[in-house]
């Protein structure tokens, strides 16, 4: 049975990855799962300097999902390189670093700094709904997305994945802009903007007022958008949004994703990534699928 998939020349031992921000750099989940078993670890977003993030409360539960407004708190790229990348070197898994910034220059600084580090790909976060200064604007206007993608592509020595926001009128327009600008792959979906109000306190549940909705509640939206984008572009897609098990992963592959990420469900079940990988293999055995690539985009 073959579970290997290839994206932009990088071969992953299986298509199961971790969604940025839900798995740290793997350190916190190391005692629950064998990181060697994962296709890739996609790290928490990293900026050129440390970011303090948003005020608490930063998370709130919603029906079948959760809202978060962490605000991309991170220790900055130098600590990340020394600590997190060093840690990940111990494992036989691919490393995809999620890059964030508030201006084009900040993104470029991180991309350049990571050029010669032990990183397989870069995922560019232009779709975080919780950071006001720019970030998401790059991901919500096709011309802005085209511009930042081509600037990053010009200097990056690593293949890049533009991470798309679902908070747009037509995600295929964004996907096409990123593809036209040279993005090697796409990942989707980031969280959906949402809000929760505590009726007892008559206040917003999140310190940031709004947050990003994730978890099983958003899965049908994510599957639909992966399908739409897969039919609009030729570059590979990493699909995510509410994946909890192997069956969910298969659904995303059938919709057109080449790989998938387990995100919010890591918080609910720290073994979710490994269980998803096993579930995918069980599905392949059950239906006599020899090569996982047969599943990609198989539902037209």
């Amino acid at each position: 049975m073959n579970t290997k998939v290839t994206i932009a020349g990088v071969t992953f031992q299986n298509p199961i990855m971790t969604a940025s921000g839900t798995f740290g750099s793997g350190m916190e989940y190391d005692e629950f799962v064998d990181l060697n078993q994962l296709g890739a670890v996609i790290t928490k977003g990293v900026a050129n300097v440390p970011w303090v993030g948003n005020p608490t409360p930063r998370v709130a539960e919603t029906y079948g999902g959760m809202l978060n407004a962490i605000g991309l708190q991170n220790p900055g790229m130098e600590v990340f390189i020394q600590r997190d990348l060093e840690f990940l070197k111990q494992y036989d898994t691919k490393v995809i670093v999620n890059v964030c910034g508030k201006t084009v220059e900040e993104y470029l600084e991180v991309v350049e700094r990571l050029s010669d580090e032990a990183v397989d790909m870069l995922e560019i976060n232009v779709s975080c709904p919780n950071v006001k200064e720019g970030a998401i604007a790059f991901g919500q206007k096709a011309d802005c997305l085209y511009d930042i993608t081509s600037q990053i592509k010009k200097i990056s020595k690593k293949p890049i994945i533009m991470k798309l926001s679902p908070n747009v009128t037509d995600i295929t327009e964004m996907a096409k802009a990123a593809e036209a600008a040279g993005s090697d792959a796409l990942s989707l979906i980031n969280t959906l903007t949402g809000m929760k109000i505590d009726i007892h306190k008559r206040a917003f549940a999140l310190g940031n007022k709004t947050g990003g909705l994730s978890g099983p509640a958003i899965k049908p939206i994510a599957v639909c958008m992966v399908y739409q984008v897969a039919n609009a572009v030729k570059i590979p897609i990493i699909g995510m949004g509410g994946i909890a098990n192997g069956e969910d992963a298969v659904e995303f592959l059938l919709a057109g994703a080449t790989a998938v990420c387990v995100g919010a469900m890591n918080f609910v079940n720290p073994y979710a990534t490994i269980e998803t990988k096993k579930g995918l293999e069980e599905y392949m055995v059950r239906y006599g699928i020899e090569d996982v690539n047969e599943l990609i985009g198989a539902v037209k």
Partner: protein
Amino acid sequence: MKKKEQALILEQTMLAKDIYSIWFQTDMASEVVPGQFICVYPNNDSTLLPRPISVCEVDAANQKLRIVYRIAGAGTREFAAYNTGDYLWILGPLGNGFPLEEASGKRAMLIGGGIGIPPMVETAKQLTGETIVVAGYRDELFLDRELSANGSFYAATDSGAHGTKGTVMDAIANNHLQADIIFACGPMPMLVAIKEYAAKHQIKAYLSLEERMACGVGACLGCVCKTKEVDHHSHVHNARICTEGPVFEATEVEI
């Protein structure tokens, strides 16, 4: 080592209005220290996130743990419906407990407010020196028997039904209580008052903080508190309550 598992429920009792106690079987009992917490997961898939609940009592010899919790929403309401023989999904042991060794040879004052009272039971049990326990309730007492058995017990109630009418700070003043070190857990206004009290009297105080959390293991960065110094992990003025905490030395945190 942290793990997620299903634990057999041995006993569930109601202690007061909306306050419940569960004893359950788990080998985590040999590892847990007072002030640590576990995450408890509802079975209902519409309520995904764990409920962080502090450990109330440990029976290591019999591999049993006790939690005492308040019904605050759908998840805890589900827990309250569990019976003996049912299973509880738990993740633990999590966080760092109270540094009991700091109390060695000192008079320790344990202060609990509302649903911050339960962790004081095992803390009081394990402290060997002079122990004063001050507990603040709305109206009805709970865990007062266990606390009285392990220290000098003083209650404060909002209603005045038991002990001092008012807050734990009122109970401390009314009873002229004094100590060399404080361990506290409870609502934020209480912790702020204790931090001020400890600074004024130059007493070391350890506070157990609470915040909304998602993963419980330090990955999501949801449950942070502001810190005085740059935190060694985050490299900003934020520490993870689930991992660096939940117990912090009062002067380390900006509350």
